[in-house]
C-alpha cells in the first residue's frame, strides 16, 4: 500500500511538472527542437532542472543497499550501448519531432488537447506493441 501511495504522489508531481514546464505544448517542444529556425531554448531548463535533481539525489539514494519501501532497486539489465539502443532512440527522436509529443505529454494531452490525443495515443500504443514484439 505504501508503495502505491508513493507511485501516486510521484505521478502527481511528474504530471504537474510536465504541465507547469509547458512540455505538454507540442509547438513549444518543436520550437525547442528547431535551433536552426525558430529556436525556443527554454525547455532546456526542464531537462536541466530535472537532471540536476536526479544527479544530486541519486548519489545519496544509491548509497543505500535497498530502497526505503522495497527490497531492491529495479535497475536496467542492459548496460551496453548497442545497435538496438541507437536505432530505438533514433526512431523515438523522429517521432518526437513529427508531433512534439513524447510519451508523458502525449498521455496528459488526453485532457489538454483531446482532439490530437485521440489520434496520437492509439498510434503510441500500437507502436509500443509492435516494438515489444520486435524486442521479445
Amino acid at each position, binding site marked *: 500500500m505504501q*508503495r502505491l501511495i*508513493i507511485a*501516486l504522489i*510521484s*505521478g*502527481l508531481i*511528474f504530471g*504537474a*511538472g*510536465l*504541465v*507547469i514546464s*509547458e512540455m505538454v*505544448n507540442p*509547438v513549444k517542444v518543436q520550437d525547442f527542437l*528547431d535551433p*536552426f529556425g*525558430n529556436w525556443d531554448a*527554454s525547455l532546456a*531548463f526542464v*531537462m*536541466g*532542472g*530535472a*537532471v*540536476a*535533481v*536526479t*544527479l544530486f*539525489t541519486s548519489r545519496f*539514494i544509491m548509497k543505500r543497499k535497498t*530502497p526505503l519501501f*522495497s527490497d531492491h532497486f*529495479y*535497475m*536496467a539489465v*542492459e548496460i551496453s*550501448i548497442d545497435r538496438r*539502443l*541507437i*536505432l*530505438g*532512440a533514433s*526512431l523515438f*527522436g*523522429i*517521432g*518526437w519531432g*513529427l*508531433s512534439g*509529443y513524447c*510519451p*508523458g505529454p502525449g498521455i496528459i494531452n488526453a485532457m*489538454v488537447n483531446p*482532439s490530437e490525443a485521440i489520434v496520437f495515443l492509439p*498510434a503510441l*500504443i*500500437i*507502436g509500443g506493441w509492435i516494438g515489444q514484439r520486435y*524486442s521479445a
Partner: protein
Amino acid sequence: MLEAFPIQPLIGGILIGISAALLLAFNGRIAGISGILYNLLFNPLSNSESGWRIAFLLGLLGGGYLMMPTEFELRTGYSSILLVVSGLAVGIGTRIGKGCTSGHGVCGIGLMAGRSVAATVTFVATGIITVTVLRSFMP
C-alpha cells in the same frame, strides 16, 4: 533577443526530478513513462507489478489536471497522418531503445548511465533533424 528567464520550465523540471527521486528512493523504481505504460499493457510477467504502474499513471493525469487550464494556445488542424506516424515511431522507438525522455533523459542520466546519455544525445539529434526537415516543408 532578451527574454524573461524561463522560470516555469525550471520549476517544472525540478518537480520532474523530485518525482523521479521519490520513486527511486522509496520504491526502487525508474520513473520512465514509456516503460511504465508498456510494461503495464504488454508485459504479462509483470502482472503483480501493475498496481504501482496504474497508480503512477493516474497520478500523472491527476497532476496534469490540477495544473490546468494551460496558458498556451492549443494547436488545431495538425496533420493526422503526422500524428499517427509520430505515435507509431515514438512507440516502436521507446520499446526498442527501452526508454524515452523520462527514463533515459531524466532518470538514466541522473544515474550517470552511459546508455542513457547515448540515447538522449541520439533522440535529441534526430528530433532536431526531423523538425528542421519538417519545417522546411511546412513553415
